């Protein structure tokens, strides 16, 4: 009579039970770290005058959802990122933060009754995401490995 004994089934079963939750935890942690990097990169790339555009880039706390978002709440963020139709901006026109176009002109040494920006996009989120994506595959690889170790 042949007796076959399989060892380690209990440990394998435990690993398989724990692995999904462990993987989710590690992947979410890695995703949060990735988005924080995108946030910092975007803040550095954002055009600065008052600094409000950079300050408006946030990663809200993840409250148990399966997605992590990056928010840019400045009203002119979209136009900086994607561009706008060129139009005349008078010097006395008010902008966010209590400033005027004239303040910006003076900081750049410009004179006149206003400016006519080209409307060309000055993306800051897109390049930040592209820069971060280079790191993401290796980060996820490490996260999965750690999840397997944690599940043992």
């Amino acid at each position, binding site marked *: 009579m042949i007796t076959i004994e399989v060892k380690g089934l209990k440990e394998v079963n435990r690993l398989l039970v724990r692995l999904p939750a462990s993987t989710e935890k590690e992947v979410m942690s890695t995703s949060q*770290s990735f988005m924080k990097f995108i946030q910092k990169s975007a803040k*550095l790339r954002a055009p600065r005058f008052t600094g409000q555009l950079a300050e408006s880039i946030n990663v809200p706390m993840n409250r148990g959802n399966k997605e992590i978002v990056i928010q840019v709440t400045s009203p002119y963020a979209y136009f900086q990122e994607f561009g706008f139709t060129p139009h005349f901006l008078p010097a006395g026109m008010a902008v966010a933060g209590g400033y005027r176009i004239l303040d910006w002109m003076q900081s750049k040494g410009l004179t006149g009754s206003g400016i006519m920006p080209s409307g060309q996009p000055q993306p800051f989120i897109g390049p930040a995401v592209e*820069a971060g994506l*280079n790191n993401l595959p290796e980060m996820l690889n490490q996260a999965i490995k750690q999840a397997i170790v944690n599940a043992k």
Partner: protein
Amino acid sequence: MTVTVSKSTIVENLYKNFYDLISTVSGITTSVFPAFPENITLTDKASYPIVVIDSPEIGNGPFTFGKGITDGTIDVDVYTQDAKTCDEYSSDIIDKIETSKGTLATIGLKQVHLNNTQKEVLLQGEIRVHHKMITFKYKFYYTKTATY
């Protein structure tokens, strides 16, 4: 100089321990900040290197019936003008934390280890800024408050 981490001081004392360790790294002793400095000129070479230590992220969970576990991360950002010094400072910071694990464990921070690093290069005016974000993980065990 390390300070003991307790349940009521985990955020500030964890931060202080990392700050005290990293600010002893040669070359960046006067360049470590708790937030990205606003009063510097990013397009001025003299502004670099810049090292920013973020406030730690914490998360709680059960460990045993009487003990809880806080595990979280703390990010360190290094900004330099060139890749070589960015890598050198990053290596020095990682080594400093790695070799201080024993000390950190005695004050309550267990399993402190490097989680991941992320790197990018971007232009600020006419200078290239090399940015590396180093993420460390830690665990902190505490006695739960009993409720009935």
